[in-house]
């Protein structure tokens, strides 16, 4: 049995779902959780339900806001005081920034953006996509321990019947150390929707959207089904949408339950970024568009007619 630490970041005081996905998958290992700051009893109970033995709250000065140095110094100090074989975290914006620095403090390796894993004779063996999902490979770690792993949100899925852990809480004082790069200000996003990489449903517009103003028909459908709106590279490069919305090899790689592609032709670099979506719907006027080769349900037709009809049908179905 491996000793594992799962670092969880907080979003409005809540642990991110990817933390619970990781804990569920770690069933059979000895898993603790570390959080920087405080979380309430209901969140600790949630972590315990999915298998957390101990929940360590790391506390100290200058840790109110994320900083690459403050967080990595604090976590390194805590990890050095224990004997973990593996440290896991979600491959979120923070996880992707933090884990490389943290792992290097141990001269240790990091397997990024892992989508599945097992322990083979006590050693981590993962699967991860490369070339934006055009291929998969087995990933293993070597060198000094602990070994570090970041897990892509939505990839493992929630364990249906998790084995509970003790969920014992402990406070630990840590030193953030010398912080040279600090956040002075946070500029909120225009949209309050969940990020593409964590979205359960995505509606994407391509070049055939013809203009930024036409994205409102996608927003309307997205509002009905609780989706986040994305865009293809062609749409972003044409100025219809910002890069934060781009799905594909030079944008975001996504794996929602439902992906609805509207007027997206399906360039190879786009397909790479969304092909692991569980169910794909494509709407395109060109019957030969490559997107149809990946679609579970393809509709050949004019998106400007089809999308509003679909929004109405979905409203009816969902009783809205």
């Amino acid at each position: 049995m491996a000793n594992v630490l799962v670092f969880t970041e907080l979003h409005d005081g809540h642990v991110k779902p990817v933390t619970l996905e990781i804990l569920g998958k770690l069933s059979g290992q000895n898993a603790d959780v570390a959080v920087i700051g405080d979380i309430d009893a209901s969140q600790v109970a949630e972590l315990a339900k999915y298998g957390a033995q101990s929940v360590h709250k790391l506390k100290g000065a200058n840790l109110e806001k994320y900083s690459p140095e403050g967080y990595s110094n604090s976590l390194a100090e805590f990890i050095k005081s224990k004997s973990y074989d593996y440290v896991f975290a979600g491959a979120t914006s923070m996880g992707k920034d933090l884990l490389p620095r943290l792992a290097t403090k141990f001269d240790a390796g990091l397997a990024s953006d892992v989508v599945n894993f097992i322990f083979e004779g006590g050693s981590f063996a993962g699967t991860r996509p490369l070339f934006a999902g055009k291929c998969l490979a087995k990933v293993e770690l070597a060198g000094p321990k602990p070994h570090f792993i970041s897990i892509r949100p939505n990839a493992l899925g929630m364990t249906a019947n998790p084995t509970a852990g003790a969920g014992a809480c402990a406070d630990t004082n840590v030193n953030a150390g010398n912080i040279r790069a600090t956040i002075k200000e946070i500029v909120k996003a225009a949209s309050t929707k969940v990020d593409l990489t964590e979205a359960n449903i995505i509606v994407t517009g391509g070049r055939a959207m013809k203009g930024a103003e036409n994205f409102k028909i996608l927003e309307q459908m997205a509002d009905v089904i609780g989706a986040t709106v994305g865009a293809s590279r062609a749409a972003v490069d044409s100025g219809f949408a910002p890069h934060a919305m781009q799905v594909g090899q030079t944008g975001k790689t996504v794996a929602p339950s439902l992906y609805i592609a509207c007027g997206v032709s399906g360039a190879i670099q786009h397909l790479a970024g969304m092909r692991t979506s569980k169910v794909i719907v494509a709407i395109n006027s060109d019957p030969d568009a490559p997107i149809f080769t990946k679609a579970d349900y393809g509709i050949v037709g004019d998106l400007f007619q089809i999308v509003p009809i679909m929004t109405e049908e979905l409203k009816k179905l969902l009783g809205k």
Partner: protein
Amino acid sequence: MNIFVCVKQVPDTETKVTPTSDGSFIETSSIKWIMNPYDEFAVEQALLIKQSNSAANVTVLRVGSVKDTEALRTAMAMGADDAALVEAADNLDSYSIAKALKGAIEKTGKKPDLILAGKQAIDDDALQVPQVLAEMLGLPSVSVIVGFELAGNNVKVKREVEGGALEVYELSTPCVLACNKGLNTPRYASLPGIMKAKKKPMAQYSLGDVGVSEADRRVKYSQFRLPPEKPPGKKFDASDAAKQKEVVNQVVGLLRTEAKVI
């Protein structure tokens, strides 16, 4: 001011990836290599600084195979002053690459004021090298930057996080910054630029020269394979306006009863 830009050479985004028969990597013989798209923003940012500070020197660094040196020549054609190439396999892991980059910077004998890189390379998509290099050099870092201002030694950058929100960081040089699309618009290399680039100095080292060995490998890949193909889906023709409502109704129904996602 010494600016270093780390670039990687990656398969073109249109590349169809084929695993080798033993699954150890992908077939690379017929690949068209390009500069990693995110690295273009790093090169451009360095050149923008050089435009307003003629004393700035821009060195591009790359760790990878020497099959062709497209990425470094492109960066020098865009305007970088010199380059260094560390010869290595194209499937080196992030820790080894960062250690090799650190070694290459030390070889130049110049003290870095600013190190720029793309936020990720679109081959292994690891998003590690800039942060690992920063930690190895004991420098602060900010990743995924979409805004950059420099005043003396003070740097103000905007980092893009979930949903397009921005974290505004202030720090001082020397530091490591990992660049995202949206930071600037990379220039094209001009014809005179391309001619000049051929004469610009390019140092070449082995991994051993920069202090990296196989013992530095931290991440091991095997069993490269294509993702499982999906069975063909259902396609409906709604090009006739009269049929649109019926088709949409059918598909929405299937999303609930068959796919169970709505």
